[in-house]
């Protein structure tokens, strides 16, 4: 795969919840290793895009390609058929996701949260997986809590475990869905620091839905501003945050700054 071929290619997708059209013919591309920030008012469809890429929501129309391969369709004898569960499972190997509310498994210890999926899906022996899990927990600064249960952790600690858990499957693309929105302000930074580390130490493609505008500015290679299911404006962080061209982008950023967020 050459550096000029997009790793994610979204082509005219639409999605409705009942009569509410969340995405309307949306197209976008993401290059390998790119760090993308998706910003915009709630209900603008940015989280839905992540959920669609993780196959948590199905699309009503359009196509998505991951590394040149159809996500929701499979080719059989030159025909495009809806993807079956096996195809989806294979495609999901490329993608990981971290959720706003962590979604840890409450009945499993920290290390078991991390090792469960690799052991089940890759069949690697427990010892090897535990060693890897400890490395990942060390990377997110949670190695000393490996034996703890999720209920014993703070929000920031839970989210760092959730990141280690997603990393354990070695995805090429990581989706971060408002990963700091549910955290107390003083816990936000410890999670953002982990994202910085991932950025420096891995070559994952990262898509980030966030309300942390300061972080989005510093972290992202490219920022997409969403409103009503469409990309209203996109560009380098400096262009979007310092000099937005669209009125809706200006209005949104003004509101965010008024609410006390740093840009």
């Amino acid at each position: 795969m050459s550096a000029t071929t997009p790793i994610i290619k979204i082509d005219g997708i639409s999605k409705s919840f009942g009569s509410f059209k969340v995405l309307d013919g949306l197209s976008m591309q993401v290059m390998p290793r790119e760090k993308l920030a998706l910003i915009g008012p709630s209900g603008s469809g940015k989280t839905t895009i992540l959920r669609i890429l993780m196959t948590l929501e199905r699309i009503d129309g359009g196509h998505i390609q991951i590394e040149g391969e159809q996500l929701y369709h499979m080719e059989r004898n030159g025909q495009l058929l809806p993807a079956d569960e096996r195809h989806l499972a294979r495609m999901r190997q490329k993608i990981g996701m971290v959720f706003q509310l962590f979604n840890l498994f409450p009945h499993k210890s920290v290390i078991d949260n991390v090792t469960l999926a690799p052991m089940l899906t890759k069949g690697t022996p427990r010892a090897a997986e535990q060693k890897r899990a400890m490395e990942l927990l060390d990377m997110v600064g949670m190695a000393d809590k490996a034996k703890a249960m999720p209920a014993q952790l703070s929000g920031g600690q839970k989210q760092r475990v959730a990141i280690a858990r997603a990393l354990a499957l070695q995805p090429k693309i990581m989706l971060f869905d408002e990963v700091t929105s549910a955290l107390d302000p003083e816990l936000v930074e410890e999670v953002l620091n982990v994202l910085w580390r991932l950025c420096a130490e891995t070559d994952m493609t990262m898509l980030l839905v966030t309300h942390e505008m300061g972080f989005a500015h510093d972290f992202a290679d490219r920022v997409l501003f969403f409103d009503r299911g469409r990309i209203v404006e996109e560009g380098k962080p400096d262009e979007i945050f310092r000099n937005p061209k669209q009125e809706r982008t200006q209005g949104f950023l003004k509101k965010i700054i008024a609410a006390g967020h740093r840009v």
Partner: protein
Amino acid sequence: MTQWSGYFGLIMQGALVTIELTLMGSVLALVMAFLAGMGRLSRFFVLRALATAYIEFFRGTSIFVQLFFAYFVLPLVGFELTPLQAGVLALGLNVGAYAAEVVRGAVQSIGREQHEACIALNLGRWQGMRHVILPQAFLVMLPTFGNNAIELLKATSVVSLISLADLTFQAQVVRAQTGNTMVPFTTILVIYFILALLISWGVRSLERRMARGLDGVRV
């Protein structure tokens, strides 16, 4: 003056039969509860229909009639059952139907975010069910399973009607032989109550053990 010690031995023999029935019936009920409860949640219409038919049928007909059917009617079509087998079958299937709804409800009570975590971690449907959803749902099921087990214990007394020598049957024997009603029935009343207490206590301690580390907060 009646010699109570011999009669007490008789009642204890009955207690053993009641305990045996309760244990075996509970095992069958548990198996049926998971089969039918998961069947209700299946993607496949046939499985859902079978599970629903089973649950509605066994909840909707009397345990007496089910027992009589198992013991008196099944032999007519070639299934000869001992009283114990008929008792376990009727009790297990009957209580299993109630418990199946407990299984279904508990599985459905586990939040969508847990299912989504399973998908995001690429677990298969069954893997997610087995390792993530069911272990959490089981904790939700336990208290109601305790109720079901006590219901089953109390329902075992119907087997006395097909001459299985359980607690109730033996109490009637004692009553017939001694002419005393108060002593045998008071005795078995207390024994049933103690057995029910043991079930409650057992389920509660199991619950406590399994809930360790989980404190109900969102994780």
